[in-house]
């Protein structure tokens, strides 16, 4: 009996020893968009993340390109979970991809830290204890835009967004805070680049303002075509169409546009100043909000690793929930559905020398959480 016990103890020791050695290590699987349309977003998230974990030996990152295709993202997630044995997944930019990957991953006991997509389905009824969103709930920036439109006195907005989960969240978010009327509400095809038909409708309507959510190349196309059309209505939108990566491609058509963001490079705190300086030194370009989200995601992970090992899921989860890290945004906390409570700013596009960039002109919403907290049973 005693012999058996000693054997058992020895066996347990043999099993547990390598685990102890790996205790401090975390393997991260990053699935993000690195090729094709929209790759600028994924590259910024990756670069921000990598900047924060640079020189950190206890984090191993596997990066894969989802090509903005849900089926490929699902295959990559399976591969990362089953053969790479990652502990934490992150990186997805697009909400439709997040909806395809996140529920399955968290149900297999993996942690998912979202550096971008925050679809309402994952904030409300579909929330999960292992899912943390470090960026925002999709509606947030649009809600701030709606609030800003009220305070500026817009009464009749024409609103448009692509027909996919984040597009619906966007218009819902704007309408939740905007008190005026809608001159028109249009869903465009995801990836659409020609907005002549929509712009003609805007011209024919009696709108006094335009709200749009068209991330990446879609926004560049819309802004350029709007400027060409001779329509002179004020435009308000979330930061996605005015981030650092695409402003130069929009050109002067973007000057003066108000956009809402949880981050801006001129937020004055030590973490952000260091981030902006380090990012420029490392990559030779100004960071975008996506880069800041990648950076914050990595720092959140590091803060949790300092408190608990990833193998102790409950302790690790509690450490993530505490969000005990210096965010580039300043104050940052998780609400009970694991989405941020944070300030959303209103920024204006300006020119610094020859470079188009953003500066904060007002606080849009203070300590905003999200509309889905109560739907989340967690």
């Amino acid at each position, binding site marked *: 009996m005693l012999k058996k016990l000693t054997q058992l103890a020895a066996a347990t020791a043999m099993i547990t020893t390598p685990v102890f050695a790996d205790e401090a290590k975390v393997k991260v699987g990053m699935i993000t968009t*690195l*090729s*094709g*349309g929209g*790759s*600028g977003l994924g*590259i910024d998230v990756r670069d921000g993340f990598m900047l924060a974990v640079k020189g950190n030996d206890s984090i191993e990152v596997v990066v894969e390109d989802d090509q903005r295709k849900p089926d490929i993202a699902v295959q990559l997630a399976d591969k990362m979970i089953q053969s790479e044995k990652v502990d934490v997944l992150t990186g997805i930019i697009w909400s439709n991809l997040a909806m395809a990957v996140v529920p399955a991953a968290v149900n297999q006991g993996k942690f998912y830290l979202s550096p971008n997509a925050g679809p309402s389905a994952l904030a409300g009824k579909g929330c999960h204890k292992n899912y943390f969103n470090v960026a925002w709930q999709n509606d947030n920036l649009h809600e701030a835009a709606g609030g800003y439109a009220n305070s500026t006195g817009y009464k009749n907005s024409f609103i448009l967004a692509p*027909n996919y989960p984040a597009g*619906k969240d966007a218009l819902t978010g704007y309408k939740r805070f905007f008190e005026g009327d*809608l001159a028109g*509400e*249009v*869903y*465009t*095809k995801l*990836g659409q*680049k*020609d907005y*002549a*038909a*929509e712009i*003609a*409708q805007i*011209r*024919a309507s009696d709108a006094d303002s335009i709200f749009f959510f068209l991330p990446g*190349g*879609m926004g*560049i*196309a819309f802004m*350029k*075509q709007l*400027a*060409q*059309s*001779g329509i002179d209505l004020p435009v308000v939108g979330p930061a996605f169409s005015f981030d650092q*990566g*695409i402003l*130069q*491609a*929009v*050109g002067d058509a973007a000057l003066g546009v108000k956009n809402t963001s949880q981050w801006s490079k001129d937020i004055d705190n030590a973490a952000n100043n260091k981030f902006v300086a380090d990012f420029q030194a490392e990559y030779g370009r100004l960071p975008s909000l996506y880069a800041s989200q990648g950076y914050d995601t990595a720092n959140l992970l590091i803060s949790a690793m300092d408190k608990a090992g990833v193998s102790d899921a409950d302790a690790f989860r509690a450490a993530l929930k505490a969000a005990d890290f210096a965010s580039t945004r300043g104050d940052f906390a998780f609400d009970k559905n694991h989405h941020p409570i944070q300030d959303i700013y209103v920024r204006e596009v300006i020119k610094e020398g020859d470079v188009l960039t953003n500066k904060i002109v007002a606080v849009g919403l203070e300590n905003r959480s999200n509309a889905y907290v109560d739907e989340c049973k967690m």
Partner: protein
Amino acid sequence: MSITLFIEQVLNGLQFGFMLFLMSAGLTLVFGVMGLINLAHGSFYMIGAFAAAAIASWTGSFWLGLLASLMAAAIAGALVEMVVIRRLYKRDHLDQVLATFALILLFSEATRWLFGAFPLYLDVPAILSGSLTLPMGIVYSKYRLFIIIVGILIAIGLFLLISKTRLGVRIRAGESDREMIAALGVNISKLYTIVFALGAALAGLAGALIGSIQSVEVGMGEPVLILAFVVIVIGGIGSIKGALIGALLVGLTDTLGRFLLPALFGAFLDPASATSIGSAIASMLIYILMAAVLIYRPSGLYGKMA
């Protein structure tokens, strides 16, 4: 809905249609003359846009950029034909699809390597920016009008080229009987290179023209390529006339559908679901059109009966 709004949308549809025509003319020629499926046609569109953006920002002249787009795409087309495509004529279509798909990946990665992953800046020239007032008080963008005019000129040019010139005779002969014109002493491989380069140049021009009002980025060619295939299937493979009619049909159907369908559903549904159902069906409309054409004319509107 006012009549001016409707006319403006028809103009938008025509502009979109002529753009598709520039893309599909090359595609249909290459398919008709050489029997080759070229998936990499979208890459020439991208090459044209990037060449235009690079040259325009370097020299400050949009027009030089436009010229550069034609030349760069034509040169890329000729090179691709001589190095890769030439080996594929005798292979079956699946091999051609595989090889030209590989070309898409090569071109996309090479472009990213050269220019980076972020979109480039290309804007319309000052003389064409802004809009002008047409009769009946229609306000329309000068640049889009310019695209329509360029499209009409190129359509006329291509018809003259095919029907009046010696090259055109050879192209038509190549379409009907490849072996025979080779036997008659026509240098068929030179002819193929010229046709391929011509098609690529038109795609490059389309890329530059559209890049200045949309965005110049890696992967911009593939969505257009799919539409161009729809156009040549509707028009009949190998027919320039078919490509023109097909392109205008697709352009008008897509633009008017996007704008009329949500309004139509709005008559009996609440606004939110009308817009979402209307726009969902609008995005299927050109494929429904294609299916309908194929039911009544299986080889397209102007295709040769098989």
